[in-house]
């Protein structure tokens, strides 16, 4: 979980929270579902409450980050050989041990990607 949180890249806007993880093998980005900020659009109306909203924003962002990590857990594995974070397309299920495409190629291990 911490590994995933560390790899999350912040793509949030003032109105939406969104995170991305990049597969370290193929370089493709995966985006988490964007979550709207509860006070989105009201920022300009209440200048006085800006400080409060900022704190609220940070809290909601943290929660969104956790949710994104949870979401990412569905799709990313850590290659036990190279320790890189890889997407399901780049992660192969092999007989002895699951590993990333590159490691499998290097070690000539046959395997089937989780998602073809």
């Amino acid at each position, binding site marked *: *979980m911490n*590994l995933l949180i560390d790899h999350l890249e912040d793509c949030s806007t003032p109105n939406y929270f969104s995170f991305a993880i990049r597969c370290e093998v193929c370089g493709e980005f995966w985006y988490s579902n964007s979550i709207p900020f509860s006070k989105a659009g009201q920022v300009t109306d209440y200048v006085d409450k800006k400080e409060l909203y900022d704190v609220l924003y940070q809290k909601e962002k943290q929660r969104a980050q956790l949710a994104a990590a949870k979401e990412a*857990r*569905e*799709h*990313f*594995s*850590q290659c*036990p050989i190279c320790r890189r974070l890889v997407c*399901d397309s780049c*992660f192969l*299920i*092999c*007989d*002895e*041990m*699951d590993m990333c495409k590159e490691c499998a190629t290097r070690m000539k291990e046959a395997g089937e990607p*989780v*998602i073809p």
Partner: protein
Amino acid sequence: MLKKLKEIRALNAFAKKQSIGMQRKLMLYWVSMILVVFSTVIFLLSIAGAFSQDDKQLHEVMKLYLKNTQDHLVDHFDNITAKSLNLSKELSREIELELSKEGVDFDEINDDPQLLLHLQEVMYPLVNTTLQTADCNGAYVILNATINTALSDAVNSRSGIHLRYSNLSSSSPVSPTVVYFRGISDIALQKNLELHNRWNLEFDISQIPLCFEMMNATLDRPAENYYWTKRINLKDTWESSMLLSVPIVSSDGTVYGVCGAEISALYFQFSYPMVEDKFGSVVTVLAPIEDNRLVLAKGLVGSVSGTYLDSQESLVIHQGRYFNEYDTGNGKYIGLHKIVPISNSELDDTVWAVAIMVPQDSYVAYIADIKQNWIIAAMILLCILLAFSFFLSRRFVRPITESLKRFQQEEMLEQAMSSGISEVDELAEFLNARARNQRLEQGDLPPNIADLFDQFIERKHLLTTAERNILRYYIEGHEIADIPDLAFISMSTVRKHNRNIYEKLGVSSRDELMLYIDLLRRCGRLNELL
């Protein structure tokens, strides 16, 4: 629950020990109980004197024997005494009558064969009648006179008649023959009597104790004097006898002589037969007591067959609580005695006693026999008790061992069979219930569960190492959701693995997989899956 656990543990201990162990313990318990009871009974019996009963019993029997014998003997001797006293009176009258007819004094009959013959002719019928009527084997009369005062032994020689039975026997139905032992032979010829082969004309009164004294004494009341001599040998014969002596006293107090009856040793033997009792041979003895001794040589002894008595011993008397001991010096007899006053004379102070006795050997043998019987009876009783205890303990242990056997064979009967012991039944019921509960938990298992397990375990070889690692997480109790974090793999990877695992192991869902795992764990076969 703790109690139940203890019971199971106890049963376990039972099962481990052989059933014979319990039976042996029970036997030991029974045997010690029996021994305690047995020795207590023996102890109480010996305190109560059950084992000295024999001496007491002997005392009673002896007392009875002695009383019977004494009664018989006193009757017997009284009869003879009465007849002899009567004989004395009649002789006195007849002699006095004859002397006055002839006109002579008694002193003048010495050296007068004609007068002596005449007197003997007068006396003979009286003596003969006494012999025939009194219960004796001889009768006699001695006059204080002799046929020839000039002879050297004239001082001891006295004229008289002695008639005896000759052919005595205990069982002869033939009436005994009277033989002529002493007296003038003319009378034997007249009466057609056989002379004794040791016949003599006159008596040798030195052979007869107190005879001389009796004839020459001045007695206060001579007619009431009588006494039995100690046993004497009849001169020149092998026979010995006791003689009753009664003085023949004239109306003026002159003692003409003595008369009386004879009881020979042989006659006494026939009259007082030995009695065979369980204690031994009971012998009757009539003997004088001198210095605390029964002097058999001076008395008479009944039939002695079965004993070692030879009628010559002096028996030392040892008084006992229940009976006396009579010691001959080389043999002991036990019995009782009693003083009997058969004589009545100031001249004679012999103390006569009648005794009955049995050889101590035979009594000891009898007691030993009884003791042996006691011991045998006790042993038999002990054996019976031991067998009984063996039987009881086996009977007690059998239901337990049988229940154990049933448990060992796991032959759990739905209806608990009664063992006859409530505790064992309870234990059996409890174990049965537990077994039933176990079966209920596994209630919906198909009957070929073992085959299914085997097949399931066999299929694990189809799994890859990666899949087996996932399976291990499940076996360790993790949920699917835990796996990504634990294995650092995506949930999609986990699902893909799961599909493969289910397919290879032949299960349709994770629930089914978990049921197999659970069952294998219960059966203790889970390690076969890893």
